[in-house]
């Protein structure tokens, strides 16, 4: 599917701090709204931050199509994200969007979503979307600690949520790959969607391969343009070097050289 990409100044209608490192930006579009799909992302311009030269990519976290609104869930990493965390209601945020492909529509109802770190971001939109397809997924989310968990109630609207924390203060202790859901001899899922740090996605992909479960991951390679022209974001696939911002960010793990 081909989407028309916009460069637009959106209005920040809410900046909600979730905890020390995470915040939610709710944005209002004025233009006719493009179709948005789960897995797609935006390239945000960080204004007046001298050390932030390039745009910053963020997944679409959830959408409100009738009101032409959507949200970004952002983890503060460095200067760019810190700057964005200071945005106030009424401020403008310039985005290029929508970018990239999307998660595929599953052919099974036995779906697992796995997210860790800021990789949980696209999974809420995906869960919303799956509900519209009459699918209620199992959602496994990894956090550092109880203090860092957020939006569990929100995810619970669309699926059955399990969590892990590094320190065991909530859910099971450990990494998402260590969760008991994934330790059974035979897993209950026919499709896994995963987003998070590379090491985590690779471990999930290994489990999926072992159990012969179809698995899609959303890659977060560093990007310069985000719309296919610089060739900086590539990943090796069965078709050679492909652009994560165009042919991805979502790839079936069968196609990756992992």
């Amino acid at each position, binding site marked *: 599917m081909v989407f028309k*990409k916009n460069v637009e100044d959106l209005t920040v209608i809410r900046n909600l701090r979730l905890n020390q490192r995470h915040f939610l930006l709710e944005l209002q579009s004025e233009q006719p709204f493009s179709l948005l799909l789960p897995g797609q992302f935006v390239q945000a311009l960080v204004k007046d931050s*001298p*050390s932030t*030269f390039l745009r910053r990519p963020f997944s679409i976290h959830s959408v409100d199509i009738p009101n032409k609104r959507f949200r970004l869930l952002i983890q503060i990493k460095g200067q760019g994200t810190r700057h964005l965390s200071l945005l106030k209601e009424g401020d403008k945020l310039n985005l290029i969007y929508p970018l990239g492909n999307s998660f595929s529509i599953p052919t099974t109802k036995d779906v697992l979503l796995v997210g860790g770190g800021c990789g949980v971001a696209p999974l809420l939109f995906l869960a919303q979307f799956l509900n519209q397809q009459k699918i209620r997924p199992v959602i496994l989310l990894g956090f550092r600690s109880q203090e860092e968990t957020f939006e569990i109630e929100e995810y619970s609207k669309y699926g059955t949520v399990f969590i892990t924390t590094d320190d065991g203060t909530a859910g099971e202790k450990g990494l998402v790959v260590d969760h008991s859901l994934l330790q059974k001899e035979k897993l209950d899922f026919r499709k896994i969607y995963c987003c998070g740090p590379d090491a985590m996605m690779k471990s999930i992909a290994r489990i999926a391969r072992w159990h012969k479960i179809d698995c899609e991951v959303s890659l977060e390679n560093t990007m310069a*343009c985000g719309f296919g*022209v610089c060739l900086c974001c590539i990943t090796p696939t069965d078709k050679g*070097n492909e652009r994560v911002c165009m042919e991805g960010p979502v790839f079936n793990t069968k196609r990756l050289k992992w």
Partner: protein
Amino acid sequence: MMRDLSVDIAGLTFRNPVTTASGTFGYGEEFLDFLDPGQLGAIFVKAVTAKNRDGNAYPRMAETTGGMLNSVGLQNKGVDHFCREIYPKVKKFDTYIIVNVSGSTVEEYVEVAEQINELEKVPAIELNISCPNVKLGGMAFGTVPAMATEVTAAVRKVYKKVLMVKLSPNVTHITDIAKAVVEGGADVITLINTLLGMAIDAERRRPVLSTITGGLSGPAIKPVALRMVWQVHKAVAVPVIGLGGIMNATDAIEFILAGASAIQVGTANFIDPQASIKIVEGIREYLERHKIASIKELVGALRTE
């Protein structure tokens, strides 16, 4: 009063001096959502080599203060693929399509130039003798004057249209290289390509790029680019196309004053895909404000007395 933005580049009339730099504009198609290529003077498409090249391994990009390093390494599907798959699409654009030709050997440059010569809607090639991101050749041709003359002259023999040569800034005397390519038969000189640089991740004690070094672009290189355009403009008689860190119309005007007959917008396209057309408007506004009839009056018009 109508302001005349058109410029004459070795017999080609660009409708305005604003063009887009190779490797930062894809094959133009990716920009169709953002702008109409017909509003630009020309577009320079991504490097084409004789055979398919996969380019370098990831990571290929590091952000730096006021710029970025890349080590893409001329990833492209080769000249046959360009002629067969890309050309039929880009030839429909209402602007000049100029192909950036790269190679590792003189023979490879000649082979690609011969094939591009057959494409009716491509009025010029830009020989890239300045890519820092390939092991063999590339930049070497652009740093040794005798080699620069040799590769230019070899291509000149087979290429019948406008021959542009893009210079590397990674040299001690840019004017020596400029004179060398003019001697080889270049009609136009483009400069600058990226400056060789490097980025280190101190926490991991590792280079950021898979290739360790890469090419620096963006506003960080603008002063170097301006200086080189100025020196080359004074040293040779052929038109100069200037680039390096141009982000807005003021930057573009500075290059034109330094001696560029046209300019290219590169890395700025990543940050604002509409930067090039905004620069066209900004130049028009500058002419208006200074009551200048034609942009041609500004080429090399820097006042140094």
